[in-house]
């Protein structure tokens, strides 16, 4: 369980996190979503006590992170930025981490096996590929067998096999009853892994919701109908409280009702339908709609500018 209350972080003139309040419940994968520069990494640094909040507070299992003597047993974190000295071997990196929290040496071997790094454990971490580096970071997070796991952009730069591995790992960790909190700027990835979503933009909370609820509220969801008797159908639907817009002579764009209801009205009134289709906005579109205007770094042609980290 992670609880943030009014969390605020200001760096000089930049307000990176702005009165953010949210709860990350156990037993679920909670996605932390936002465009580049939205404040996701900063929020995670605040949770870990690496940065001090300007205002507000955040607790992990009811206690500030810095209050734990053996925090690795409480929270396992994979940060987006590098946290490994390239001159040290993977084994030795995990070894000093384990020693610092009184974790046994056998646990180091165990997590190395779990992430599939046993064969390269004695090699210098500086020579690792991006994927191997991510695996080492995840091994470090799992070291203390913590109840809370927090991963910042875990799939960034991974090949499809690595992405699949992380997805399954996250789900199995949540299934074990752990609190799993992952950040991403990719809605498509979150749609596959997350049960809940916390969406932020420019440091502010935009939505704290489930994927279903998120899609239901989308403004672009509609039903499309083609009928030779479009005028009559439009009148009936409006009478039933649906929103109807004429598109051309025989096409209607209907909102505020279901396709089942439209079909039923048409049948009971003897109207011919040539097309009846429900159009649901994709998560990606919904996400763009929500975060529109809150992306910090966007190129003029609408492409995402490179992340700043």
């Amino acid at each position, binding site marked *: 369980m992670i609880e943030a209350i009014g969390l605020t972080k200001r760096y000089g003139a930049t307000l990176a996190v702005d009165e953010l309040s949210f709860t990350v419940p156990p037993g679920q994968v909670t996605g932390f979503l936002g465009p580049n520069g939205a404040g996701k990494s900063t929020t995670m*640094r605040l949770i*870990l*006590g*690496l*940065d*001090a909040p300007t205002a507000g507070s955040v607790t992990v*299992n009811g206690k500030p*992170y*810095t*209050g*734990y*003597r*053996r*925090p*690795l*047993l*409480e*929270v396992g*974190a994979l*940060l987006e*930025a*590098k*946290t*490994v*000295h*390239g*001159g*040290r*071997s993977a084994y*030795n*990196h995990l*070894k*000093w*981490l384990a*020693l*610092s*929290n*009184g974790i046994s040496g056998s646990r180091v071997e165990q997590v190395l096996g779990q992430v599939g790094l046993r064969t390269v454990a004695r090699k210098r971490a500086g020579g690792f590929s991006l994927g191997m580096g991510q695996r080492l970071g995840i091994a*470090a997070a799992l070291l203390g067998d*913590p*109840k809370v796991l927090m991963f910042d952009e875990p799939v960034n730069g991974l090949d499809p096999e690595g992405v699949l591995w992380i997805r399954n790992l996250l789900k199995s960790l949540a299934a074990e009853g752990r609190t799993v909190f992952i950040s991403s700027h990719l809605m498509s990835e979150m749609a596959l892994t997350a049960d809940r979503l916390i969406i932020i933009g420019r440091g502010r909370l935009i939505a704290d919701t489930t994927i279903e609820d998120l899609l239901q509220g989308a403004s672009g969801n509609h039903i499309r109908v083609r009928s030779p008797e479009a005028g009559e159908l439009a009148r009936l639907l409006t009478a039933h409280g649906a929103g109807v817009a004429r598109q051309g002579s025989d096409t209607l764009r209907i909102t505020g009702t279901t396709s089942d209801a439209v079909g039923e009205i048409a049948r009971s009134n003897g109207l011919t339908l040539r097309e009846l289709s429900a159009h649901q906005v994709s998560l990606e579109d919904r996400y763009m709609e929500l975060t529109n205007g809150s992306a910090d770094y966007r190129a003029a042609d609408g492409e995402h500018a490179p992340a700043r980290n």
Partner: protein
Amino acid sequence: MDITATAETTYSPLTAAVNVLRSEYCKLRTVRSTFWALFTAVASNVGVAALLAIFVSGRLTANQKATTDVVRLTLGGLHISQVAIGVLGVLVISSEYSTGMIRATLSAVPRRRLVLAAKTAVLTAVSLVIGIASSFAAYFTFQAMRSGNSLSAALGDPGVLRAVVGGGLYLGVIGLLGLGLGAIIRAPAGAIAALLGVMFVPPLLSDLLPNSWQTAIGPYLPLNAGGQIYIASRFDPNTLAPWTGLGVFCLYAAAALAIGVFLINHRDA
């Protein structure tokens, strides 16, 4: 939840401190820079002593021999080893900032002053052991290789044992000065530059001062003060006594560390 709760409550502050010490020692011995810094220190202390014994000891005039402090001459390698150990001290903390590893460290041990205290303890122990051992090695090397009966100094002679041990103490303190500057400046290049500046610039600046000022300030400059501990006999009256000088030198290191301790709790990592 129950298991971790128990683990947290039965984990005493002493156990925590010992584990952080072991962790810092593990860090220190698992990077190459430590090996190279210590190797350089030992090699220069012993190597320079051997070179001086071979090439210099036989060529000094009687007058020169009378005014030469044997231990100070023997420990000529300190000119190099002090830089090696000082840089090691800087890297012990600043390499964590430059590689981003500090985030892992402070996530594992959120009590930041405990981290710095453990680093201080581990670095002090290692640099004192290596410093004192290599200082003795230099002394015995020089005495074994010097030509004829010139420049002999027995450990029982006045000040000799203290000065030989002092060479190691001097290295221990300079390592701590480096650590303090590393904690303050955090960027390795900047901290190393600052360390070299603190070591070598003050004498250059004091040369620009009027003579009376030089006499007043000179003995208190970092290396002038610290250097007295590895001189067996005091020839220059305008210097501090050995232990006083070492004390002043320690104050410089303590000041740097104190600022580092203050800053580490007040800055974002």
